[in-house]
């Protein structure tokens, strides 16, 4: 491998002070010694990241191919989404930041206590005795995965659950076969950027016929200031297997914006099922819209095998800007794609989110249920595509998008694209937009429930259909998040 000219510097990040935002309790900064690459993006940085990760040559070449393609895009981001933000200076970002560790934690005890404490604060205990019951966690801090719990338990069943860097080293055949097969490096601006500089992420492989006994979870945390987080997740469910995967994210409160451009690829082979749930709670910025994470994420699943199923559930309450379209390519006959979403914007948050369902196989089915809540000065857009190819005989789609507006300064937009090229297909799209129903409010208040509480009940009820798709603990947390995010806007 060519030795990179760029070097990383070690520095201790001090606690930022002066920002008071009581609503966002995940906004603390952790003092850890970090290994940080200099700001900016160039070929040396790409080589440096690859070198730092000890990657094989083919991986470096793949990154460089992506980087060179990215250069051709002239830093021209996609402009079609209904989001507005000042131009991002891609040379003013740290593309690599990792907590300093010796050779990667061999056991939980070797993990930096500061980090363990940080995750404890986030409610994600990493120590053996305190682990979340029934959930295996891969904790990603800035650019790297710091710990993965329950690995051994999973290994007994042949399940591979580890960080992406580990997978590249230990399971190169799987990574090489599937990485970029769903989201190619040239897919879109942010996916290309991610392909060039992705630092870590989670990798999961479920062998044929295995039903993953516990939920897999990745917890993402951005800590370093001015750094971008570019993780890459790859989940492969082999024939007849099942996995439920959870994803949670938070970031400290900072005045400047942070970029998060992740790529998630899911592959489901014959009769396999992947259930992917996200609780996105990146720092949304303060009440004046200062700071917050730019969440530009590409998520896509390929229902490759016959009768396979991919289901996305997302609760999006964080981020200054969300640009995210978890999609399913329904390639196998009889495959099923689902998308359940609650997106909430408050203050000056913007969300342009939705899904793409591409029906290729026969008898493929997809369901889309999207709930948008807009408050404050927030703008929420549902943007979705249902595409039925000529080969997709008897394809079915059902789409429902409902928006709820709280206050008269916010916006709710619905932009569905429907492309039907097979007459045997049937698809139906429905959307409604309204405010909290006065009659319902009146009814609850009349029963002695306070105005605020009544509002929460109605909003919670509005999202209930989505929350019930989430695993139990997640559903509770989602409901809490919704409440916290709306604090002070109702009434």
């Amino acid at each position: 491998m060519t030795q990179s000219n760029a070097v990383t510097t070690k520095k201790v990040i001090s606690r930022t002070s002066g920002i008071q935002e009581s609503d966002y309790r995940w906004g603390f900064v952790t003092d850890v010694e970090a290994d940080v690459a200099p700001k900016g993006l160039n070929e040396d940085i790409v080589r440096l990241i690859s070198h730092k990760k000890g990657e094989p040559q083919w991986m470096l070449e793949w990154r460089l191919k992506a980087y060179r393609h990215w250069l051709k895009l002239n830093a021209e981001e996609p402009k079609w989404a209904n989001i507005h933000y000042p131009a991002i200076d891609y040379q003013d970002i740290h593309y690599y930041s990792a907590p300093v560790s010796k050779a990667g934690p061999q056991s939980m005890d070797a993990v930096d206590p500061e980090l363990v404490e940080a995750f404890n604060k986030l409610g994600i205990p990493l120590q053996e005795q305190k682990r979340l019951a029934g959930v295996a966690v891969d904790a990603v801090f800035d650019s790297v995965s710091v710990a993965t719990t329950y690995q051994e338990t999973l290994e007994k069943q042949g399940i591979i659950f580890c960080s992406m860097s580990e997978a590249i080293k230990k399971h190169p055949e799987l990574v090489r076969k599937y990485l970029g097969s769903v989201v190619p490096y040239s897919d879109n601006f942010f996916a290309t950027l991610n392909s060039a500089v992705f630092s870590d992420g989670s990798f999961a492989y479920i062998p044929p016929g295995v039903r993953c006994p516990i939920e897999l979870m990745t917890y993402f945390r951005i800590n370093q200031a001015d750094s971008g987080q570019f993780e890459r997740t790859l989940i492969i469910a082999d024939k007849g297997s099942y996995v439920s995967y959870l994803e949670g994210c938070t970031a400290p409160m900072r005045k400047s914006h942070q970029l998060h451009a992740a790529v998630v690829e899911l592959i489901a082979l014959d009769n396999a099922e992947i259930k992917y749930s996200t609780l996105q709670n990146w720092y949304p910025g303060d009440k004046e819209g200062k700071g917050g994470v730019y969440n530009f994420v590409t998520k896509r699943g390929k229902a490759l095998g016959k009768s396979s199923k991919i289901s996305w559930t997302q609760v999006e309450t964080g981020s200054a800007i969300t640009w995210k379209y978890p999609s399913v390519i329904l390639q196998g006959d009889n495959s099923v794609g689902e998308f359940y979403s609650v997106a909430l914007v408050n203050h000056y948050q913007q969300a342009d989110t939705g899904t793409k369902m591409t029906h290729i196989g026969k008898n493929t089915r997809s369901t889309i249920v999207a709930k948008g809540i807009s408050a404050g000065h927030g703008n929420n857009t549902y943007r979705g595509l249902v595409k039925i190819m000529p080969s997709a005989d008897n394809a079915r789609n059902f789409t429902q998008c409902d928006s709820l507006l709280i206050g008269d300064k916010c916006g709710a937009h619905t932009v569905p694209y429907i492309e039907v090229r097979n007459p045997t297909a049937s698809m139906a799209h429905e959307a409604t937009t309204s405010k909290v129903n006065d009659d319902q409010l009146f009814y609850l208040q009349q029963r002695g429930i306070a105005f605020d509480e009544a509002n929460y009940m109605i909003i919670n009820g509005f999202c209930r259909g989505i929350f019930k798709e989430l695993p139990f603990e997640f559903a509770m947390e989602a409901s809490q998040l919704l409440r916290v995010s709306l604090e002070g806007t109702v009434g």
Partner: protein
Amino acid sequence: MTQVLTKYDKYVTAFQSLERSQAAREPQWVRDIRQRALSRFSELGFPTARRGNENWKYTNVGPVANANFEYAFGASRDGEKAIELRGIAPWGQDWVNLVFLNGRYSEVLSTKPSSAYAARVTNLADAFLRDGEVLEKHLARHATFDDDGFTALNTSFLRDGAFIHIPEGESVQAPIHLIFIATGSDRPSASHPRTLIVTGKHSKATIIESYIALSPAPYFNNAVTEIVVGDQAQIEHYRLLLDNTEAFHIGTSQVYQGQDSKFTSTIFAKGAALGRNNIHVLLDAPGSSCVLNGLYMTSGTQHMDNYINIDHAKPHAFSRLNYKGILDGKSRAVFGGIVVVRPGAIKTDARQSDKNLLLSRDAEVNSKPSLLIFADDVKCGHGATAGHIDGDSIFYMRSRGLDIDTASRLLIYGFAREIIDTVQVEPLRVYLEKLFLGALPSFKLLFGERA
């Protein structure tokens, strides 16, 4: 800019010759508008770049931009008298007919109303000289050409068309029928008909626009209609796109609505190789309401694009949109619907629906019904469907003794009937029903059958 001008040379040349011939006869303000429109068109050109251009995402107007159309205005008018309107267009005993051949008013074929008639119905060339005040206030004020190449092009050739002015409080019973005929010639020709309809307070009128071809020769029809609906006025508007299957038809209607006004539009589209129907409704006062209905039938390699923009600018406005499409052959239908609710436009009630019936394996539907909402106290919704008629309905009818062809046709007819039934003008409804049944393919809806 120079490059663009070179590209649109033929339009510029036609424009210059128009300017020379009209110089003495037309008021200066008309010429100014034309001049501005042409320079804007030179900048905008045709919307051929579809990437990033959401309004034209699914429709390629390259064939229009690249074709060499001749400005048909001065075309020969031999045989004008021989045209028998009753055979080619809907016809009502008491209707007022204004006929335009290739965009130019035909005195011979038209039946202008008598002087006792309550409304002013005339051709634009005449109105330029006699209705300057109303025209200056409204013409090209509603259908602005700042961001639309086709409207800019139409305005560059603003020369003739229809002008209807219904004064305050007048209720015009007999429908006013505007018939735009493409006579067809050896070389493909372009015409840019323009219509201005201004209606006063408390007025009422029914207006029909028909676009008809006499021959199967290709042509380009670039029509713009501006409609001002006064306070409490009630206007019914019908637009029949009966172009031939070689034609390019780009039609834009820009509607401005006053307080408590009612506007009903019905589109019936059957023709055109490439058809685009733009309707923009600006609900600019409280209590205004609009109902937009549409039925389009395509076959062969036709491409029909409906682009409907309803702008709720003020509170308490109401809108309904109901479009239906029947697609056969390798045809393609595009629907782009936008409902905008501007900040403060509370108590808005808006619904849009686009339903498509696919009769063939090669037909394609692209539907994009969007909502952009910036006010909270609103009721908005949209729905879109695409598919075929389900096998159970066919089975039911066959079990009652109908053969499959009849059952299929009956079901398609039932699907379309909802729109045809909204037509209030009796002779027009009868005409459309006949036309629809004639165009209905003999068909077996077999897709839905159980094996």
